[in-house]
């Protein structure tokens, strides 16, 4: 936290606020899908709930960005008053740890497309382990649970990883990120 500029923290918080709202908007959609398909309904779109980790880490590129942004997004969801309550903060932390672990494995140096996708998968893995205990997936048939897990990992790689990268790149092109790591990289690439 000491090598973070305060500006970066507030920008990360602002991103988390935006995506906290997006996360809440997707909850009823997940609920409808879960009503039709059972718990696996959530897994199709689960990647959307990891996206801020990938965006914040890709833009700011500092240790902790993935974890903190997801945690703050969860806090914001609690702030707005969702019905999952304070436990959601723990859920956010668990999801953030998964993505953060992947970035940590590259020593927070590599932000290529496949690392971002792997980070989405990382969140899927930790969130699934957590959900396995908290939601009692142990009582479901192993085949169904495996299907849920695979669908969630694909969703994490595609929605969180690829869509997150696309959004961040779109933002970098507008120039608002000029004082952040991603914007600087863009300028360098342009100059070259």
């Amino acid at each position, binding site marked *: 936290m000491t090598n973070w500029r305060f*500006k970066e923290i*507030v920008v990360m918080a*602002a*991103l988390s*606020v935006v995506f906290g709202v997006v996360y809440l908007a997707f909850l009823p959609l997940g609920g409808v899908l879960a009503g039709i398909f059972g*718990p696996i309904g959530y897994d199709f779109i689960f990647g959307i709930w990891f996206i801020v980790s990938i965006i914040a880490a890709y833009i700011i590129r500092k240790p902790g960005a993935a974890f903190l942004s997801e945690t*703050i997004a969860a806090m914001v969801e609690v702030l707005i008053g969702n*019905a999952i309550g304070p436990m959601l903060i723990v859920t956010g932390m668990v999801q953030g740890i998964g993505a953060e672990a992947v970035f940590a494995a590259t020593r927070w140096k590599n932000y290529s497309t496949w690392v971002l996708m792997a980070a989405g998968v990382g969140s899927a893995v930790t969130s699934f382990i957590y959900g396995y205990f908290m939601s*009692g997936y142990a009582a*479901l048939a192993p085949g169904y649970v495996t299907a849920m897990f695979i669908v969630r990992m694909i969703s994490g790689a595609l929605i969180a990883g690829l869509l997150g990268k696309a959004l961040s790149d779109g933002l970098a092109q507008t120039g608002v990120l000029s004082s952040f790591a991603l914007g600087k990289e863009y300028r360098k690439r342009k100059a070259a």
Partner: protein
Amino acid sequence: MFLQRLNPSIKALTIMILVVLLAFIFEPMTPLLFLIWTVSITFIFGKVNFKKYALYFIPFVIFSFGMLWTSVVFADTPKNQDEIVVLLGMAYPRETLLTALALSIRVLNVAALSLLFVFTTNIVHFILSMMQQLRLPPKIAYAVLAGYRFLPMMRDEIKLIHDAHRIRGVNQAKTVTEKWNNYKRYSIPLLASAIRKAERTAIAMESKGFTGDKNRTFYRQFTVKKTDWLFPLIMLTGFLAALLAS
């Protein structure tokens, strides 16, 4: 009211502990009794608006129903297959049905616990209390509070972007696909303006002397009083009683 005056951190921690405890229960009686207990406490000590409460609770009933039928259909093969319960003309193993009921009531119980928190807590107080009792770093706490203040501004911002698009000839969205395309078009400008606002806010806060130092004073002080411990006591007693009674 008692629930509204509780220290928010104590309230949140108690609820988290209870949710974790509930995850270890795989029979339906305990969560059912504790659900009744939680809802009663909410209304007796919280004076919550019933209509609003019901409105928030309904989505969980739907989700709980989804949980119920999938847990029956996709259940793990039970150990004891001889005991069969006939329901609506179909036969189910008794164990499967009980586990499915337990899981779906657990969903409702977690929802009830969360609603207890959401309906009785001022959220800004919760953040301030997390900073004062749970050592949340002030840098993060105030960044979150600042970000939270952006929310109403964002609604105006969406309106602005929407109008700007219309002036330039983007038609009013009527179908779902058109709406979806519009949101895609709005996402980048919306995020860009949020980032600009955040940068300005950060600079403003720092120029007015915000350092994020942990040794700071607070205008609104939150403390843990003896009566605050009553809440975990009441809730844990209720949980134990439910566990013993079933």
